[in-house]
């Protein structure tokens, strides 16, 4: 009697583990697609952001390297060109008629030429670019610091985020865009880079300017930036998640 009972229990446990193993493997794919479960998994992003913001002081800088550390080849990822006649016309005349629009929740909306941008206070930094895919490259960036620019246009008190509108479409009909909050916007290393490795930014790397927000992953560093919009909420822009990749499931806070 006892032996049979034990066997049954063992048989049950064995079957239970086999079934749960199969459920686990198949179930994980289904869980991955369940909006409710994704919401639970996404809670980790808020924890990561709060913890990182707690250990990062406003001024902590991303590490800067020397010229000898530069990558021989810096991979251009995402869009490497913009399939748009007006952009191509700007490339052909060296962005002479290009304007960076700054609007939204600002006191004095602005429209700046590349020359005007180049005359603003600048910063040069050699930093490591970390792609979400896992690779890293080191490049030298020179660009206009965002802080004085934002002081010039005067952010309204209700502005909480800056949205960077870009020229490229990584998917047909979906323009690239990104957003950062004011902590990163006013960080000294946050620049609108117009030079890379001592030469004007090339088209594959986002000419005429790309954002550098050094304490986050590569997809936050929007290329082909055409306009900056100060907003109070990201809900009504693009897919509502604050960026092209964010609308496709990636974290808005890309510090990890």
């Amino acid at each position, binding site marked *: *009697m006892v032996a049979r009972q034990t066997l049954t229990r063992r048989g049950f446990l064995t079957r239970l583990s086999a079934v749960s193993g199969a459920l686990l493997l198949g179930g*994980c*794919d289904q869980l991955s697609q369940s909006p409710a479960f994704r919401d639970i*998994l996404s809670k980790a992003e808020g924890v990561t952001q709060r913890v990182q913001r707690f250990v990062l002081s406003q001024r902590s800088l991303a*590490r800067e390297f020397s010229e000898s550390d530069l*990558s021989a080849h810096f991979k251009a990822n995402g869009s490497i060109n913009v399939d748009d006649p007006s952009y191509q016309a700007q490339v052909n005349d060296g962005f002479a008629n290009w304007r960076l629009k700054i609007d939204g929740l600002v006191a004095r909306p602005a429209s700046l030429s590349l020359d005007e941008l180049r005359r603003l206070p600048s910063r040069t930094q050699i930093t*490591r670019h*970390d792609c979400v895919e896992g690779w890293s490259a080191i490049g030298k960036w020179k660009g206009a610091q965002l802080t004085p620019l934002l002081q010039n246009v005067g952010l309204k008190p209700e502005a909480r985020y800056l949205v960077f509108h870009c020229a490229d479409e990584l998917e047909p009909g979906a323009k690239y865009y990104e957003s950062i909050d004011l902590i990163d916007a006013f960080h000294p290393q946050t620049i609108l880079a117009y030079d890379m490795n001592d030469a004007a930014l090339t088209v594959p790397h986002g000419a005429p300017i790309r954002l550098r927000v050094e304490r986050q992953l590569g997809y936050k560093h929007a290329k082909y930036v055409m306009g900056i919009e100060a907003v109070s909420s990201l809900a009504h822009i693009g897919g509502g998640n604050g960026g092209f990749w964010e609308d*496709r499931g990636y974290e808005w806070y890309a510090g990890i």
Partner: protein
Amino acid sequence: MDAEAVKAEHAPVARSQIIYRHTLPVRLTHWVNVICPCILLMSGLQIFNAHTHLYFGNRSDPQHELLSMRAVRGPDGMPVGLTTIGNTTFHTTGVLGLSRGDDGQWEARGFPNWITLPSYRDLATGRRWHFFFAWLFVINGLTYLTYSVLNGHVRRDLSPNRRQLRNIGHDIVQHLRLRFPKGEEAKHYNVLQKLAYLAVIFALLPLVVLTGLTMSPGIDAAFPFLVELFGGRQSARTIHFLCATGIVLFVFVHVVMVLISGVWNNMRSMITGRYRIETAE
């Protein structure tokens, strides 16, 4: 007939004794630690598949790869999966570099779909799984560590004593012959167990967490010494991968030992805490 009498009738010649082996916090944190590393491994391989190369230092220079998995076209026009470690290249078609997707078609991917989470290629979701369970893993680990240090579990149960360390050669031989301690000796972890557990708890697991954090640009700005310590972000990624391999090896040996040293007794002790030891005849 009551249960005790039945037991006595069927009892083997050797007498046995039930001891209380694992406390509730140890059992709970143990099972959370079954789930977390499984999910972390599978989602980690999904993340690895987004860039199937490993390097040393801060940059990922294509000409300085330590490990690389990729698919190429063979001489007959058919795709081939290749894995290069250092200067040696292996044909790994079907498993690494090239394997069949859910639809049965060949797919260029580092690790195959039956070991990644999700099974299909989806870096964003892999990251969501990874970071959620990384937090759970860290909280669980800190809970275990705090409890184990405060209540003396580390000192009492995990630290080998001098006599054990002196007899380590004998223990290794006994282990290789699959002879496990009985009686008084079975009341405690043996020296190999203790050393393996200490190495995992105080070296391997902290290292996998720290190298994981070192891949974060935010953490690198907050704690620059971490990236120095591991020799760069790409080194940290490589060490993270090696640690994961080490954990897989540990779990493999651990599960084999659980299976061959009395699987039901071991399972019961990790579920109810009660462990049967056979007293010497």
